[in-house]
Each structure stands twice: as C-alpha cells, then as structure tokens.
C-alpha cells in the first residue's frame, strides 16, 4: 500500500471507524463488491489456522470474540494464508504470478507483490471449485466465478489446497439463506441509509403509469395474503369482468396457481398477460379458465381475437401433457390463436452457457475453434429465439392491436424474459435507467423469477441453476449494440446489475418471490441494490442517449448477423482481448468536462459583467473620460448577456442530459458535503470582489483534463484495467481511481455551486481556503 494513502486514512477516518472499502483491486468490480474491513494495528500476531467450519469462521469474525487480534489484510481478518501460490493466466502461461493467497470470511484474495496485482474473489461469486490433478509445482485449484472469471491457483502443499478447497465449497454456497452476504454487509462508505432503494419502486404506481386500474382492468386483493398464488405479487391486476369464481377457478387450473394476470398494458388497449401452463393434460378443460381468457380478450374491445403464446418448443409442451399439464386447446377457448415459439428450457440453457464458457476458455484457440465452439454452444441461437419471441409479442400488441397471453411451463423463466423484453420494445420508459429497474421489479421480482434458485445463492439442487437472467441482460446488450442512442444506461450498468444479482451483497435479488423477501424482512435487514446504484448513477450513463432519438416502438433487426458474442461479459477478465481505448468512458469524461466548463463560463460571464458595470459606474462618476470605451463595453455586455441566455436556454432544451443526471446525483451527495458554503459564495459577488477571490475561482476549475490514455495506474498505485472507470478531478484535471475520487464539493469557479468530484488534495485545499473567500 502506498504510504500516501495510508497517511490519508489515518487522517480522515475517525478512530472508531469500523469499515471502509478496500482499495487495490485488479478487476473491475471488486470495488463494488468489496468487503467491509476494519482498521487495526494488528499485523504480525497471526492467529492459528484452525480447520474451517463455516459457522465457526462466521461467528468468530462477526462477534469479534477472538482473544488475539486477528491477522489482517487490508483490514480483513484472514482465516488462512498460503504463501508461494502461483496464479495461472491463460494468456500469460509462461510467467505465472507468484504470491500469497488469503482466505477471509467474505473473499479469497491473491496478492502478487511484484506485479502489484491483486485478485479479489467474493465467495458468493464462486460458481465452482475444482481440484485438478497434481503437478510438479503443486496442486492446482480451479475456481470459476459467476462473473465469468476463471482462475487456477497452484498451491505448493496438497494439504493446504485441500483445506482451501473444502472451505471455499462451504463458503461459496451457504446452506441457510440467512448466511448470505447481504445479511452481514454494512455499507458505511456509501453514505446511503438502509431503506434507500427499497422505496424506489412499488408495483401499484408502475401500473398507474400504465393507466391501470381502468374500466377494463382492476386490482384484485384475492392474493393479498398470497393465498391465491404464493409466487405472485400481492397486488394483481385482472380483467374487471372476471368474477372471483373465475379467478379462483382459473388459478386452480394453472400450474402453481399462476393464473393469467396483466403484465403490461399498451396505450392501444392491447395487453401482455402472463400465466403458467394450464393443467389440461390430454383432454381436461376448465370453464373458469376459458372464461378468464375470454375476459382478457374483451378488455381490448377493438379486437375479436387474441394470441396465446406458449414460449416452449411444441415437443416440450406435448410431453407436459403426460404429466397432466400442457397447453390450451384452440377448440375449447374462443377466439384465440395459439402459437409455440420454441425457447428451450433451463437445462438446455445451462449446458449451452457451460459450452460457451468452455469456448472462451480454450487455450490459444484458432478462429475456427472459436467460431465453431460459439456455434455448437447454441448460445447465440437461444438469445435470438428469446428476442424473436419477444418481438413477436410486441408486434402483435402494437401492429395488430391484439392482446397476448404468454406462458411457458411455470411462467417464471421464459415468460419473464419475453414479457419484460416485449414491454421494453413497446415502451420507451423501460429503456431509461429508472424504467428498466421498474421493469425488473415488476416482471422479474414481483412475478417470482426464482433468483435464489436460478443463481444458486444457497446450496440446493444444481439442476435448478440456469442463466435465465444472464440471457435477458445479454438480449438487452444486443439491443444496445443495434441502437446506441436508445438506452439511457451503458454496458457497465448491465454488468453491475448482472454481478449483483449473483453477489448477494444486496437484498434486492435474494429469495425466489415477493413473499420470500417479505418473510425475510429484507428491506429492513439488508441494503437495496437500487440505492447503491442511485449513488453511482454517473457511471451508468450512456452519453449518446437522447429521448428524441428513441423511437416509441423499438424495431430490432433479429438477423443472425446481428446477434453478437458479448465479449465484455463472457471474456470480461481476459485482460488482453478488449478495446484499448474505451469510447464510452472517454465520452462520459467529455460530457463531464463540458458540464464543468459551462458552469465556469457562467461564473466568468457574471464576474465580467460585474466588473464592467463597476468600471462604467466609476467612469460615469468621474466624467473626465470620453465615452468611447463605454460604448464598447455596453456592446460587450450585450454580447455576454446573449451568450448567457443562450446557455440557459440550451440547458433547458436539453432536458435530461447526462449532465443533469450527474447533477441530481451530486446534489444528493452535497447534502453531507459543505452545507452553507454555497449560499455564501454565490451571494457575495455583489458585495466585495477581491483579486484573491478571482484567483481562487479561476484556479479551482481545470480548463484541460488529463487524457485518459496510457494511464496505467492511479496515484495510489492501483492499476487500471480495461473495466475500471477512470475519474477526473474537476479541479486539477488529474486522473484517479474510483476510491481516490470519493470527495464531492462545490468549486468556487462554478456558478451553480453544485458539488462535483474532486481528488483528496484538492478537497483539502478548497476546504482550507474557504475562509479566504467569504469576507
């Protein structure tokens, strides 16, 4: 660790501080999924390495009841430490890094002191741990993560390797849901209260946005105690014409009681409804269910028929009939058009992803190996079929003004994917950050996509694990590639979301349905991912996004040529394969820079006008001088004022620009920054202006920001990699890592006095000089 940083921590952190985010990291998201650590002076007083038992490790760490202070690494208590471990990197097999492996309660950390390289692996992210055959240098341990990181550690002693292996297996997948990371995670660095994010979305207001309840659709409280269907939300929207008998009957005739309910209502009154498969077997029928579908049909009075979409391949649906389930018989249901759309089941998807990862992990593959592997994995084919089905639904709703009832088997995997994507094609709101989160809240969380089972959060049936959400995120990415200006968020947003669904750091995605989350009291006991993301909004903005460029209906081109392999996701940790100059981040920096300059220009204009006025007054008083310069001055002032007006109008026109969003975020942060200072600064201009103040104002805004290129590490010696966002200090224009730029303060050179990101030395300088500026 850099001495400068260490000094700094001592200064900034009060003595009783328990937690802060750990710095140095090799991979991008470690800082996001970082542990809570405590600062302590203890270092050499090692603790005896005891055989690992999950509960013991946990309780010992959590209760802090150890007699001797534990050995720490970056403040994390180390459970086990193994020296002389080699980390094998496929692209650098000749020169493996040698270093120390630390095992803590939350992370596995590998430190290579020479390469300044640290690899942090959150236990919750570990998908599999495998002991490979012994080699001459030791026993290799291969770890595959749900974030698609794959590393092999060669541990000199077999005994150590086995111990790490056994411990990791236990830590990666706790047996009890309450052992998940989110129940222990405390976020002190994030400046966000625990409830933040839990209250951002509620289902009823999302339906209100769709103008529901309405004449056709009403809220039913039949499920308020989850008695009708325990995997559905408590508030359900159903056709107003459907009686309680119909609802109950339909629910009984559907697998897991998941009756047809409203998912999305388009403005033309065509709706997307979702349910599970009917329990039709070979010939069973249910009048209430038939009536239910008829009620759905009648909510859209302009159309005489509707679609029933079974997202499964026909053969799977047929097979289900043998178990008393199946699909709707067109002869029994009036005016429906029935379609099979052929998305494969979770097991096919799981093995497809496994094959895809195998392809990514090929050792020095040729182009043919890679493309062949990509083809045989079938991954892109599956992505295409999901997009196609979703587009079929969206088209039916928009072009044919026809309602669609969607189901698969249980209606929580494929149905969720296509209902949410279908809505996203139809409604531009879902392509904003807030809207996208609302979409996930509605179609994924409320309607019971089984996150904990599909992600394997806790030990359970491995056959229940499947990359259903990953596919959804992949589909969204495909669309962002086709329509660069249509989504308000960027790739980093998608990756962060994906990783945190797996990380269990936040309570948002814990459990399998709404009822689970209420039973676990997650909103009281854990943090929400939405709160965290709101605090990092400026990292997720797509600078190209414009509401004007966003069409109402997104018409994707689903030609096979347009479905691409997402390198940024599946090869994320192959440091060598990514573009060396990330366009998105450079553009974000440009936007920030422009925003800083605009603000500065407004202040300069104000100061210039003020001085001119003063000089003019002064000259008027003296009357000795001819009026020549005054004319010029007045012209200038007019010019300035015009400029000013232009700028203001421009800002207003822009509406939601990236800058504005940053402002929102920043103003939030400023509440705990420098209260009071801002009012003083902006109001004093009319009183007394000093040269010192002007100098301070000019000195506080960097006209040029350092180029992001070829900067390999932050001043704190954290190495930057492809995915780490590099930040500029708005005052000095230097480049820092996310951790070094954690301060926000208003700059004297900005008129708006909103808090902006600055580095720590600049922060101190501004606070220190605050006294000079306010006379």
């Amino acid at each position, binding site marked *: 660790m850099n001495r400068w940083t260490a000094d700094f921590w001592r200064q900034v952190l009060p003595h009783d501080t328990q937690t802060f985010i750990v710095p140095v990291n090799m991979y991008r998201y470690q800082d996001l999924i970082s542990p809570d650590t405590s600062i302590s002076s203890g270092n050499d007083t090692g603790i005896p390495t005891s055989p690992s038992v999950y509960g013991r490790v946990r309780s010992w760490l959590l209760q802090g009841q150890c007699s001797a202070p534990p050995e720490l690494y970056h403040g994390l208590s180390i459970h086990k430490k193994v020296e002389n471990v080699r980390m094998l990197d496929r692209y650098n097999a000749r020169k493996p890094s040698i270093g120390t492996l630390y095992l803590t309660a939350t992370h596995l950390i590998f430190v290579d002191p020479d390469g300044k390289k640290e690899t942090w692996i959150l236990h919750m992210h570990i998908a599999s741990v495998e002991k490979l055959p012994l080699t001459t240098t030791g026993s290799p341990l291969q770890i595959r993560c749900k974030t698609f990181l794959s590393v092999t550690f060669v541990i000199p002693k077999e005994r150590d390797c086995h111990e790490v292996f056994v411990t990791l297996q236990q830590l990666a997948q706790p047996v009890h849901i309450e052992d998940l990371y989110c129940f222990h995670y405390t976020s002190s660095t994030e400046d966000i209260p625990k409830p933040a994010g839990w209250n951002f979305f509620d289902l009823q207001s999302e339906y209100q946005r769709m103008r529901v309840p309405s004449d056709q659709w009403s809220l039913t409280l039949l499920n308020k105690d989850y008695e009708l269907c325990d995997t559905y939300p408590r508030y359900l929207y159903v056709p107003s014409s459907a009686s309680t008998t119909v609802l109950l009957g339909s629910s009984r005739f559907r697998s897991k009681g998941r009756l047809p309910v409203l998912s999305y209502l388009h403005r033309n009154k065509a709706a997307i409804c979702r349910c599970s498969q009917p329990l039709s077997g070979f010939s069973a029928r249910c009048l209430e269910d038939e009536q239910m579908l008829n009620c759905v049909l009648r909510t859209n009075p302009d159309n005489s028929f509707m679609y029933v979409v079974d997202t499964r391949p026909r053969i799977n649906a047929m097979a289900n009939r043998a178990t008393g389930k199946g699909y709707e018989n067109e002869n029994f249901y009036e005016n429906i058009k029935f379609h099979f759309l052929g998305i494969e089941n979770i097991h096919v998807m799981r093995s497809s992803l496994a094959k895809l990862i195998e392809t990514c992990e090929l050792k020095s593959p040729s182009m043919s190996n890679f493309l062949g592997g990509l083809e045989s994995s079938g991954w892109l084919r599956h992505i295409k079929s999901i997009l196609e089905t979703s587009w079929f639904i969206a088209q039916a709703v928009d072009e044919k003004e026809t309602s669609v009832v969607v189901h698969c088997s249980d209606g929580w995997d494929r149905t969720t994917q296509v209902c949410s994507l279908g809505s996203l094609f139809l409604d531009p709101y879902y392509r904003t950050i807030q809207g996208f989160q609302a979409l996930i809240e509605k179609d994924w969380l409320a309607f019971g996509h089984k996150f904990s089972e599909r992600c394997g959060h806790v030990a359970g049936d491995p056959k229940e694990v499947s990359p259903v959400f990953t596919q959804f995120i992949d589909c969204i990415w495909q669309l962002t590639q086709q329509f660069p200006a*249509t989504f308000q968020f960027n790739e980093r947003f998608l990756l962060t979301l994906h990783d945190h669904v797996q990380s269990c750091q936040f309570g948002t995605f814990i459990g399998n349905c709404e009822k689970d989350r209420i039973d676990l009291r997650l909103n009281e006991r854990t943090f929400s991912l939405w709160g965290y993301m709101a605090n990092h909004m400026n990292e997720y903005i797509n600078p*190209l996004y414009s509401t004007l460029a966003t069409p109402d209906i997104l018409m994707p081109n689903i030609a096979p040529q347009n479905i691409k392999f997402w390198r940024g996701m599946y090869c994320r940790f192959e440091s060598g394969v990514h573009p060396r100059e990330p366009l998105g981040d450079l553009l974000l920096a440009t936007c920030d820079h422009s925003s800083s300059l605009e603000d500065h220009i407004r202040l300069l204009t104000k100061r210039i006008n003020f001085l001119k006025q003063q000089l003019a007054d002064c000259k008027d008083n003296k009357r000795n001088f001819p009026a020549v310069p005054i004319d010029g001055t007045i012209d200038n002032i007019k010019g300035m004022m015009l400029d000013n007006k232009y700028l203001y109008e421009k800002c207003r026109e822009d509406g939601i620009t990236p800058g504005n969003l940053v402002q929102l975020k920043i103003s939030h942060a400023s509440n705990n920054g420098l209260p009071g200072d801002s009012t003083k600064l902006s109001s004093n201009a009319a009183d007394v202006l000093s040269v010192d103040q002007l100098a301070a104002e000019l000195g506080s805004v960097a006209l040029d920001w350092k180029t992001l290129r070829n900067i390999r590490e932050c001043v704190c010696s954290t190495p930057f990699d492809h995915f780490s966002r590099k930040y500029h200090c708005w005052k000095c224009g230097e480049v820092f890592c996310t951790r070094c730029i954690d301060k926000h303060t208003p700059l004297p050179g900005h008129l708006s006095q909103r808090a902006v990101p600055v580095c720590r030395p600049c922060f101190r300088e501004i606070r220190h000089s605050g006294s000079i500026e306010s006379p």
Partner: protein
Amino acid sequence: MQGGSLIIKCKDFRIIQLDISNPDKFLKVATTVENLSSLDEPTKLYPFFYRPMFPILEDGWTAFRPETEYSQLVTSQADEWRISYINKDFSVCATYPSAVVVPKSVDDDTIIAAANFREGGRFPVLSYRHDTGSVLMRSSQPMTGPSSKRCKEDERLINSVLGPGKRGYIIDTRTQTLAQTAKSRGGGFEVEMYYPQWRRINKPIDRHQGLLDSLAKLVEACNDTTASTDKWLSRLESSNWMSHIKDTLNCACLVAQCLDQEGASVLVHGSEGLDATLLVTSLAQVILNPDCRTVRGLEALVEREWLQAGYPFPIRHRKSCYSTGRTKAHAPTFLLFLDCVGQIHQQFPCSFEFRTSFLIMLFEHSYCSQFGTFLGTCEAERAGMKLAEQTVSLWSYLNRPDILQSFLNPMYDPNNRVIWPSVAPMSLSLWSELFLRWVVDQTPQQKAWETITSLREKDKELRLKATRLRRQLADLEKEAVEAGILVPASAGAPPTSEAVADA
C-alpha cells in the same frame, strides 16, 4: 415477348434488381450494362471522361512522390540511405517506381545484380525505418532454383542494413512447403548458409484465389439474413475470412515486434512480393508509425506500399466476389488490408485521425472510381497512360477541407506510441459497417457518430470560450485594480488570475 428482371451484383457487395417491362429496353439495358462493366480499353474508363466540379487545391498526383515521402529519412540518415534513380526507365524492375530508397553503401551495379536474382527484378528496398533504427524491407523471392544458387550482391545488399554483429529476420509469407515447391520453378528462399545473419520465419498468409473464394463465401453468408444462427456461424467460420484477418494481423504484429521490441531489421517477401508482402509491410507500419494513422499518412501509405510498390489494382480488382471466372490473378488483398486496419481501429478508436468510413471509401474507389488513382498496374504503366495529365487523382478530391472533414474521427487524440492490437479470436469481429451495410440498417450507428461529433465539438468550443473569457476577465481585473474598485492581491496569496489564465 416480355421484359424481365435485371439483377446487378456490384463490387461493393450491393445487389440491385431492376424490373423492366419493355422487352426492347430490357435487352438494351442488359447489353449496355454488360458491355460497359467489362471495358477492355482502359482509356475508355470513367476517369478519362470525368471532369472535376471542384478546384484542385493540391494535385494528388504529386503529393506523395518518393522524394518528398523519404526526404526526411535521406536527409537525417544521409550516411545510410539514398534515393536511387537506377530504375528511372523501369528497366531494372518493371513494377517498381522510378525512385527507390536503398542503402548508401551499396552501388547501382550491385543493385542490378541483386535485381536479376529476385523474381520480377523486385530487389530488396526500404519500406520503413523505425525509430529504433531498425528497418523494414521488402522484395520478391530469390531465384535460387532447385540447386540453391547464391548471389553475393543480393547478400551484400541486405547485409548492408544490419549493423555489425546484428541479426535480422526474413519473414516469408508462404508456408515452408510452398517455399520449397517454388524452387522447382526457379524461385525459392534465402539459403541459411549464405545469409548467416538472418533468421528465416515462415508466416503463411493465404493469397490469390483462396482469398477471393473466402470473400465470396463471406459475402454470400452475410446476404442471407434469414438463415439460422447456427448456419450463419458455420458459414462465417467456413468462409475463413476471419482466419485470414487473424493470420495477417499476427504476421504484421510479428514484424512490428521484431522492429520495435528486438530492434532487429526485417525483410518481408512471399513469391512475387506483391500481395501478402505488401499487406504485411503496410500493416506493420500502421501498428508502428503514428503518421500512418492520420488521413494523409494513410493516403501516403497506400501510395507508397500499394500503388508505387506496383500492386496491380486493375488486375486484382477486375473480378470481385460475385464474378464468375475468378482466377489466380484476382484477389481482395487490399480489402483484407483495410479490414485489418478496421480491426485495429476498433481496438484503438481514438488513435486514428479518420473514421472507418474512410476505409470503406478507399475500398469503393479501389474497385471503381471516377478518379485515376487506382488505374494502371504499376508506375510504368501509369506513366504510359498519362494518368496524371488525363485524369484526376483521388487524393486531389479527398484532401479538400470540406471532404476531409466528413471522414475525421471526433474521438481522435494523437497517440505517438506503437499500438499492439489483440489477435485473440474474440477480439476480432466481422466488419459489419462494410459487409452488412446493404442488409442491415446502419443509420443508428451513423447517428451515434454524429452525436459524438457534436459532443466533442461542443466541448472544444466551450474550452475556447472559457479561455477567451478568462483573458477578458484578467484585463478587466487589471483595469479595476488601477481604478481602485478591486482589492489588490494580498501578500502571499495564490497566483493572480492572469497567471492562471495563461496557464
């Protein structure tokens, strides 16, 4: 009798269908298009009839003469290199330009002897001198024949670029087998015994017909948007186009690595020294030389390494992927070069002054153009056709500020370093901007670039404005202090705003 549909398949991969109901006109149009698209007499081609509607500010025909291109080199390294006019009447090598750069220490007789030893007289010439002092040379294969003949002059010529005790690399773009079989036809490769200071490496790159067949398969696959994903991927793979890109970049990176990291000189050749050779030497320069990543630099590179080096554009580009009767003489090597540049561009989107649309424009003009630049197979032929007098150069058109503007990359931030592209399969992707442009709508991507341009321009304007206002404020401040309105700087205070404004 009825009319019919005329399907026109263009060299830029577009397919147009014309439905003509009048049978007479249908036949006339068909024959006319057919005749006009296969003109044999070069002087009947469009460039000879095209008259520019713009004033020529700078004549592209003279903009990139070897004398100017290499002037800096031969003045700064005057004791090592010289421009030789030994080929002024194209007698030593028919496909070389009249002026070539050769080592100073080697006299013209030696060069003539060496030229006799190389196929088509393409003796080793300087292609690029790297900052490290190592040089990149290219030639054709030595005519060793089955008995492994030697030519002391050729050995002296290429040894002269190596410093004492230094070693160099000969990169042969053929497979070892191909190089061996070339012996029976009089060609061959440098025998190790006679070139002890050089290490031979075979880095095979597919050429000629293989390449054109590959392109044909690729374009065919791209045009079929209704195929299944599996079919598309398998056709993409079996076209081998992406493999060719990987091989080419790999070879170019190897050359660049030898020059930059090992400081060793490199001689590149295949058999004729026309296709793969030029591909590799030009790409290596894009990797190594920041100048080649500018608009003018790339134009100069195309002039030096393709046009003046005698790449027979009219022959190679006579047939494209849709044509029947493709032979060995037809090859999309230049397109492969542009695609490779595009791949590097994708990995370093801020290091190039131009946008990838510039590469597409070059691709189009190299196959068919109103400008004379890509006519003639070599300088001798171009001189014979009097192209410089009778036609307009593409560069004359491009280098006009208003045209140039539309190709500029708004994200350009000059990068003086060597840029090492990744050649991992997942790093290379199909150039959809080119290959899919007729089948997939590219407007969202183009609009995105427009937005990027306006964001960057706005930022530049704001910076200028802020500087101007700071200066104005500094002036007013001085005035105000003199007038006593402003409290002067307190002692020990931070620097005044004037100093800051200047900074």
